[in-house]
């Protein structure tokens, strides 16, 4: 708890500084990552982040120490090489995209490992600092490094915000952008450079192996909450920042613990919550709305059977007769009956279940939609009368009043459906 207060009260100016750095850095990466996620290129980020390892090692070898300029420079060079190679291979060989990405990723990483072991054998005491790049160590970032990384993040955030329109075109409709005269290839180049930059700065905190998560997961999670690009970007940034700070805090409390894995676990947890509980797109929400819909259709069917019974001259049906109509749906049928009784669409008169006035209107509407659709299929689509029932069985729950009006109009208010059954209307009884 003491650690918690110490950390989050920012008494220590260097902690405040690091948290600020992580915040900017997380926003930058999430920002770029969301665009590449929308562009269906999520794994390109993974390839780039594995590929910067040899560049980092080369930068280290050239500088002989952990100099941020050399390291960022090396990382940019090898990240660009990997990006270029990926697109070159894609247009010049018959390999599929995922093979290409996996090949580039693992080869560059292999090369990085070779260089890393070479550096290890040289016995350079700064070697320990290099290991941070693999799994990340936010606490270990030095203040002067932070200026470089923070500055780069700001450049990324600014250029993405200023060129928002261009990048949206790139992601959503490249062909359209080209048609109205935007230099799409140049925009893609700029975007790739921004992606490489964001990887280069992100690996400080999260490491090359897990950097992909910082690019992919915030966007994927935020996508569940909104359809608007601006909200999406803000949410993704927020997720990244929360996870970044959590990871930093944990490696502050447990100094041996790398930051990256904790950032990823926290991000994935946020993503899981989004997948499960987000309104509209979440699994739970979709499950509930599907169940609601199934119950509604079953109620419609019960009403319909009762209406058909009245057409045959009966006043109503008793419970067992209704249950026997839906042999494998006993629970649903009982549920529907009690729901409809409660909402006064049915009356239970001494064991005989009858339609009430409002129930009768509703039942009529469903039967009418069913038979109208059958007539439409028969007349306009030339489908034989014995083939139209199944489609109507589905559409009767979906046709809106506007559509009903249109159908009625087209069919010139028919009296009979293809099976020569009456199409019931609200004022028939009069």
């Amino acid at each position: 708890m003491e650690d918690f207060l110490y950390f989050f009260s920012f008494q220590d100016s260097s902690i405040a500084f690091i948290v600020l750095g992580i915040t900017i850095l997380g926003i930058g990466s999430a920002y770029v990552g969301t665009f590449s996620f929308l562009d269906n290129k999520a794994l390109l980020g993974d390839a780039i982040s594995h590929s910067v390892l040899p560049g980092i090692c080369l930068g280290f070898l050239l500088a002989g120490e952990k100099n941020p300029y050399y390291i960022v420079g090396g990382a940019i060079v090898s990240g660009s090489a990997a990006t270029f190679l990926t697109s070159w291979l894609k247009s010049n060989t018959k390999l599929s995209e995922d093979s290409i990405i996996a090949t580039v990723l693992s080869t560059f990483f292999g090369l990085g490992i070779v260089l890393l072991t070479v550096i290890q054998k040289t016995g350079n005491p700064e070697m320990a600092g290099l290991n941070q790049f693999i799994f990340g160590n936010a606490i270990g970032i030095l203040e002067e490094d932070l200026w470089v990384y923070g500055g780069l993040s700001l450049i990324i955030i600014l250029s993405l915000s200023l060129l928002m329109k261009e990048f949206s075109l790139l992601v959503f409709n490249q062909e359209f952008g080209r048609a109205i005269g935007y230099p799409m290839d140049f925009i893609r180049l700029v975007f790739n450079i921004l992606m490489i930059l964001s990887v280069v700065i992100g690996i400080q905190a999260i490491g090359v192996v897990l950097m992909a998560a910082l690019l992919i997961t915030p966007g994927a999670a935020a996508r569940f909450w909104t359809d608007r690009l601006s909200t999406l970007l803000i949410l993704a940034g927020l997720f990244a920042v929360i996870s970044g700070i959590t990871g930093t805090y944990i490696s502050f409390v447990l100094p041996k613990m790398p930051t990256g894995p904790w950032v990823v676990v926290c991000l994935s947890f946020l993503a899981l919550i989004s997948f499960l509980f987000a309104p509209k797109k979440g699994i739970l929400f979709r499950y509930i709305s599907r169940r609601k819909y199934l119950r509604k259709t079953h109620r419609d069917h019960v009403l319909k059977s009762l209406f058909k019974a009245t057409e045959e001259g009966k006043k109503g049906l008793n419970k067992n007769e209704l249950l026997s109509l839906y042999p494998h749906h006993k629970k649903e049928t009982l549920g529907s009956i009690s729901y409809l009784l409660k909402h006064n669409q049915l009356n239970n008169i001494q064991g005989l279940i009858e339609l009430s006035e409002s129930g009768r209107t509703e039942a009529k509407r469903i039967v009418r939609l069913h038979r109208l659709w059958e007539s439409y299929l028969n007349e306009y689509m030339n489908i034989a009368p014995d083939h139209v029932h199944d489609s109507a069985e589905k559409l009767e729950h979906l046709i809106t009043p506007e559509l009903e009006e249109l159908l009625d109009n087209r069919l010139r208010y028919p009296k009979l459906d293809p099976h020569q059954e009456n199409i019931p209307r609200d004022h028939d009884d009069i």
Partner: protein
Amino acid sequence: MMTFDQNAFLIISTASMIAISCGLLGVFMMLRKMSMTGDAISHAVLPGIVIGYFISGSQRGVEVIIGAGLLGILATLIIDFLRKKAKVQLDASIGITFTLLFAIGIILINLLAYKVDLDQECVLYGEIAYLPIDLWITNSGFSMGPRITWLALLNLLLVGSFIFLLFKELKLTSFDEGFGMVMGIPAGAINLALMSMVSYTTVSSFDAVGAILVVALLVVPPATAFLWTKDIKSLIKLTIGIGIGISVLGYYLAFWADSSIAGMMVTVGGAVFLISAVLTSKKFKFRLGTQSNQEAFNS
């Protein structure tokens, strides 16, 4: 010192066996456009290895293999779940799944560091160079030779017989899953079996080449072979050849540069791939004049 002694022979043959096992599976992964899933599995088995290690107390336990196998299958199930139930696009599902599982693995290694003799570096590049001193000693004290070599041999036999026995089924479901289903081949089961073999191979090769470089051996030799041929039998033969070639070259280059053998194998593989890609690329063919006029016109 670049001699061919017993250690060199052991290391090269073990590396070749691992490369061949990975390559054989990799061919089918590539044909199914599942190379990145292979990548995901090889990252995702890490927590299984750590937990198995923790339970059994040794790297040699069956628990390690079971744990890794379960995690590999779990990874494919999570990817499927995210894609089908949560409707996340495939590449993002892969990215989310493997980063999460790998992160959990790294955290477990750090938390259990006092108990588990695994470190992050072992995860990264394995220790094939120490293979000759890691001996399999039977209960009666008789030394049977390097443990990892035996593991690789067993793995190769299993993978080999898996491919040999299910060759027709694998081929059919790789090229045309729908047709395979019509022929009565349980495509889902075949797929799961392939994934289990990939997980098992990852674990078995983990000691030698590390979790991440297994991916390279899964992906790079088949991709290189695919540049040269489309016929599945020659694809497999070429993959095996490349696997052996990069093991030999990788060993000696690593010796020369005094660096990680597994990393060097992958680097050599990447170089071979790159050269092949340039040689077989459309532009290069055009310059050599081997392209037909029509194609030349188009490009």
